[in-house]
């Protein structure tokens, strides 16, 4: 019998997926009881759908293999295509190189420079103490001299207090303690560089302040 149902394939596809409304499903079900053709079609759709759902990975192993290969090829190709694009014509490499250099320069130039001017402001109460303790008789400071400009890692050295334990303390220009070390030597190199600014440093024993000095890091 000729079936008058329009869009049969779409309807059956939706039927198999349970996407028909209750009314549509009822109409189609009822139709299948009178239409051998639509019933047969729906059986094939259902069996195909169920079979693929259950055994899809095995049945389509070649397709899945192909998809995996394509994916890895695509990733490889994108790098290869880019390199080929550059190397086919030398001027492209030159332009790409120049472009990259320009980007680096722009990034460097536009990088905001931190405002370090406040790092050089003096701290009045320590400045007042400088004149009192910087001329200690117990130690004779060799470096850095008061107000010396230091480049790189500062080296602290002094004479006197040989073999005695002293505390070396470094303060920033706000009076915050930045480093504190204990040594019985008379020389000490700070293991790291300091940010540009004004620093104060102290040599102390357990009970006394031996020396207070300052230096600048540029």
């Amino acid at each position: 019998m000729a079936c008058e149902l329009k869009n049969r394939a779409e309807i059956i596809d939706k039927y198999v997926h349970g996407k028909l409304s209750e009314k549509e499903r009822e109409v189609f079900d009822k139709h299948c009881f009178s239409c051998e053709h639509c019933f047969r079609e729906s059986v094939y759709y259902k069996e195909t759908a169920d079979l693929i759902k259950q055994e899809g990975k095995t049945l389509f192993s070649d397709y899945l293999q192909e998809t995996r290969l394509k994916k890895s090829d695509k990733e490889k190709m994108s790098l290869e295509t880019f390199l080929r694009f550059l190397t086919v014509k030398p001027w492209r490499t030159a332009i790409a190189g120049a472009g990259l250099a320009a980007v680096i320069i722009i990034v460097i130039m536009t990088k905001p420079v931190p405002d370090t001017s406040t790092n050089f402001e003096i701290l009045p109460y320590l400045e007042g103490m400088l004149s009192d303790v910087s001329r200690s008789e117990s130690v004779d400071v060799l470096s850095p001299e008061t107000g010396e400009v230091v480049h790189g890692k500062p080296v602290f050295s002094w004479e006197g207090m040989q073999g005695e334990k002293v505390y070396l303390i470094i303060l920033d220009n706000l009076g915050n303690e930045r480093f504190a070390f204990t040594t019985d030597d008379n020389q000490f190199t700070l293991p790291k560089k300091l940010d540009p600014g004004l620093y104060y440093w102290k040599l102390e024993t357990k009970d006394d302040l031996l020396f207070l000095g300052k230096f600048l890091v540029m």
Partner: protein
Amino acid sequence: MKKNQFFIDYIDLYFYTVFMLEARDKNLVDRIRAGEIEAETELIQKFGPVIARKVSFDLGAGNSDWRDVAADAQLALLISLRQDKFDVNRGTSLGSYVYGITVNKIRDYYKTQKKRPLLKESLPECIVSAAEAYDIERKEIRSQLRTLLGKLKLKYKEVLYLRYYQELSVTEISQKINLPPRRVSERIHYAIKLLRKECHPKKDFSIFLNVILILK
């Protein structure tokens, strides 16, 4: 004019076919009323698979009760026809009548939530064997489909895999494989058409049913 003539011919043919089918159904019902056993087998051959499909689909693939519910529906159908409850002149086709009985039996099953114990001895042989025949036919179709699916071109495998394994919508597949939705839809249906065309079960439900009945 030619077009109009075509439609007239088509409508004539359609109504003629409907008329013929109705006449055949009427004849079948009359023979059942008259107590003809072959007519009952013929009825089950005709509606057994569609009843089985409807029941198994509605109850779910994992529910083994579908066989009993389908048998119950087929028995109810036979009894109803034997007792002359189907009136051909009321304008309802036999297909719609069978559908109504099947749906009622599914509803009954859900209402009670337990299968009514069926006395298999009281069932006609054709009904007892119908579920078995339906299972065998499905297995036959599946076995052929399994081979045919493996032979499909990759482009068809792709859409079928995405649609039926990953259960993506046509729109999602269209975006994934960069093809218009209409083409995706066509490709899916064409793939199934190819399978349908190549799938030739050596025997169908009617033959399986007859074989089982003969062997019994």
